[in-house]
């Protein structure tokens, strides 16, 4: 089965090629069949491999395709690595990806760019699979930039709209900033270890002293890449804008899969990170800050997708917090659960928007629960999952991270809890405002309301189930479960895990859970009182807000800040370089020519045409020449 691994990325690629080349001529039905089919078959193989991997003792298999780049001692094979981590991600990507494909076939059915959309989606899946399958950093980088490209294409899917295009461009450029860091990191890895294949690198890294500066710089550089891709402070601003793309895209790329690439990368190179505590601290702090920061912004947003976007950012923050404190399994676990419930939430939102015929502002929604029953139920489940309602998937993953946080540093834990509280608040705010109360939209919108077609609801249901039960793979021992995921991922993290052992007294764990639950309950109740009891509505546009609220509502003016601190100055500088410096440099060049002309204009006047003068000059020069004899 594992031998077939190269088929996994191949199927989506083929799908992309077929749809991309002949999509125009194919019927929508056929397109969606090819699109979904390719991913489904990939999923099938992935599942097979996954099971095989559980079965067999050999946990990491490398499949060599061909030698890609060679230059001197640098030789980079194009080869795949199958191990628990990658196979898990394969499952998430292909699985969630498939569901979203199905969903899209309904969601996009009226769009003229239908086939193009599927082509892009398949291409994305291809690159994403490449990212996780690669057996060395450069292949990962290939996927890394590839998915960046796809997100660029998909954000700007409706390319006639300039705002969307700008969002796409912003996403690409910001990712590039991170990518540069990543690339430098890779090069440094090569310079240090003479190879960039995971296996060789980690084998050598193991024997290095902890806190080795080279490792620190490597990990920091890699982390910069992760910041860009996974929208961490300060490179997060592209993600909310990325919501410009069609909702399935937001679900797949900007929630479930692509944005978690950063986590994958760090988890993959966990040993390097474990050996550079400083970086770990940085990661943890950035993570928690992002979590809080994004959450606060989320509190005041009114665009249904924006809220989800910020919640994504903050959830990613949690994951990085997890990584930063060495809870690799927890982070990966959260990636998985998050993939389920966030995808679910986005798709639900999509279904809502679909029903609202494009309206995204929650202030003009409400009372949709009776119109969209399935969407409502699934969305509710998703919300419960994300806020970490006991028993739901989110609960377990988040709890694991927080537990490690407590052990690592109480402050981090407290901040985490704080974030969780806010998450609960804004998620329920969103839920209440959308589904509870009565409808606030225009009349014909209301008239037009309808539940989405099967192709969209089925994925919702499936995802809902997953987000409910998804946590069961990682029930901590204290709750009498055996942490299946931890077992499964052990081989990947073993080198790190014995370095940061994790022992927490059961009672502390119970205490932490209790605290988490109570906090969640309290803020849930608060949200309920505010938005259901008192039926308060968010302020309409242009209405005066109190400063704090305004600050949050305006997202701390970060975009404006960047605009004024980076973009504008860059343009000004470039303008200056072009208008001033370049002209000066050129001026020097031309100056030489002009000077020659000037001199020429001067010298030619010596040729007066007067014999007397000529003879005179001749005599003078003769005098000078003979004078040399007297010296």
């Amino acid at each position, binding site marked *: 089965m594992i031998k077939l691994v190269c088929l996994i990325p191949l199927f989506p690629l083929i799908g992309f090629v077929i749809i991309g080349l002949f999509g125009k001529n194919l019927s929508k039905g056929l397109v969606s069949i090819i699109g979904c089919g390719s991913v489904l078959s990939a999923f099938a193989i992935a599942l097979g491999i996954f099971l095989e991997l559980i079965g067999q003792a050999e946990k990491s298999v490398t499949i060599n395709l061909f030698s890609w780049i060679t230059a001197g001692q640098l030789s980079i094979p194009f080869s795949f690595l199958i191990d628990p981590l990658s196979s898990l991600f394969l499952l998430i990507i292909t699985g969630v990806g498939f569901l979203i494909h199905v969903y899209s076939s309904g969601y996009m059915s009226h769009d003229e760019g239908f086939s193009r959309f599927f082509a892009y989606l398949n291409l994305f899946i291809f690159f994403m699979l490449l990212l996780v399958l690669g057996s060395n950093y450069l292949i990962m980088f290939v996927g890394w930039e590839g998915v960046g490209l796809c997100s660029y294409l998909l954000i700007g899917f409706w390319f006639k709209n300039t705002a969307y295009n700008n969002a796409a461009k912003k996403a690409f450029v910001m990712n590039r900033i991170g990518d540069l860091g990543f690339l430098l990191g890779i090069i440094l890895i090569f310079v240090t270890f003479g190879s960039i294949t995971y296996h060789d690198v980690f084998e050598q890294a193991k024997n290095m002293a902890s806190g080795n500066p080279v490792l620190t710089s490597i990990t920091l550089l890699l982390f910069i890449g992760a910041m860009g891709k996974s929208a961490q402070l300060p490179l997060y601003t592209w993600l909310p804008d990325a919501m410009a793309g069609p909702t399935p895209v937001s679900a797949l790329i900007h929630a479930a899969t692509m944005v978690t690439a950063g986590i994958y990368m760090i988890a993959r190179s966990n040993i390097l990170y474990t050996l550079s505590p400083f970086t770990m601290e940085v990661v943890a702090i950035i993570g928690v800050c992002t979590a809080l920061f994004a959450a606060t912004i989320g509190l005041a947003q009114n665009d249904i997708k924006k809220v989800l976007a910020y919640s994504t950012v903050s959830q990613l923050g949690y994951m990085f917090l997890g990584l930063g404190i060495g809870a690799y399994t927890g982070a990966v676990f959260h990636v998985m659960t998050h993939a389920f419930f966030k995808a679910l939430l986005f798709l639900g939102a999509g279904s809502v928007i679909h029903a609202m015929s494009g309206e995204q502002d929650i202030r003009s929604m409400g009372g949709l629960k009776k119109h969209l029953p399935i969407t409502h139920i699934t969305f509710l489940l998703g919300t419960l999952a994300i806020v970490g309602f006991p028993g739901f998937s989110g609960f377990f993953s988040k709890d694991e991270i927080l537990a490690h946080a407590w052990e690592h540093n109480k402050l981090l834990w407290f901040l985490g809890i704080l974030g969780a509280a806010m998450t609960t608040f804004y998620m329920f705010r969103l839920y209440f405002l959308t589904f509870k109360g009565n409808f606030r939209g225009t009349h014909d919108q209301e008239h037009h309301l309808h539940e989405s077609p099967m192709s969209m609801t089925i994925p919702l249901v499936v995802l809902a189930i997953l987000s409910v039960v998804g946590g069961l793979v990682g029930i901590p021992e204290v709750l009498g479960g055996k942490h299946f995921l931890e077992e499964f991922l052990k081989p990947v993290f073993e080198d790190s895990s014995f370095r940061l052992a994790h022992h927490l007294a059961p009672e502390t764990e119970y205490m932490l859970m209790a605290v988490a639950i109570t906090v969640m309950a309290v803020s849930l109740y608060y949200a309920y009182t505010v938005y259901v009891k008192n039926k308060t509505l968010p302020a309409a546009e242009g209405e005066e807000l109190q400063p704090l609220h305004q600050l949050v509502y305006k997202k701390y003016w970060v975009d404006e800040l960047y605009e004024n601190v980076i973009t504008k100055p860059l343009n000004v500088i470039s303008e200056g370089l072009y208008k001033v410096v370049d002209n000066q440099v050129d001026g020097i060049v031309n100056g030489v020519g002009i000077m020659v002309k000037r001199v020429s204009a001067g010298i030619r006047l010596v040729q007066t045409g007067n014999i007397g003068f000529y003879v005179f000059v001749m*005599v*003078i020069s003769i*005098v000078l020449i*003979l*004078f040399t004899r*007297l010296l």
Partner: protein
Amino acid sequence: MITTYLFYLLSFLAIMFALMVVLSKNPVHSVLYLVLTFFTIAGHYVLLNAQFLAAVHIIVYAGAIMVLFLFVIMLLNLNKETEPHKSIWLKVSATIASGLLLVVLVGSLKGAETIQSTNVFDPNIGLIQNLGKTLFKDFLLPFEVSSILLLAAMVGAVMLGKKSIK
């Protein structure tokens, strides 16, 4: 003894007349002074035992060339009035320039005593016989070649001199 004085006298006259050539306002006078200069130079030739050369000198220069000059001046009817003059500054600078030239020339010519004549003094080398020998033996080719020169000059002078038919 006499010869020494003669040398000084002739030299003095030569320089005087030469200067007069340059300085005299009237072209005709210049010509005449030049003739006189040539005579003094001929005198020097005689002193140097170059009698034949002296004769030729008189004939060619005073006889032919100077007449030619005079002829032309008359033809063009040049005289004191028509004579153009340079501005005083130019004249001054000209004088200074040639003064400098004189200085550097003299300066770079000192030390001629180092020349040692190899062969013993022979008073007869200036005689027509010796000259003839040299001219028609060693210098036959130049002699012949100079005929081309004169021919060319003649042809050219004629060509330029004659009015072009229009």
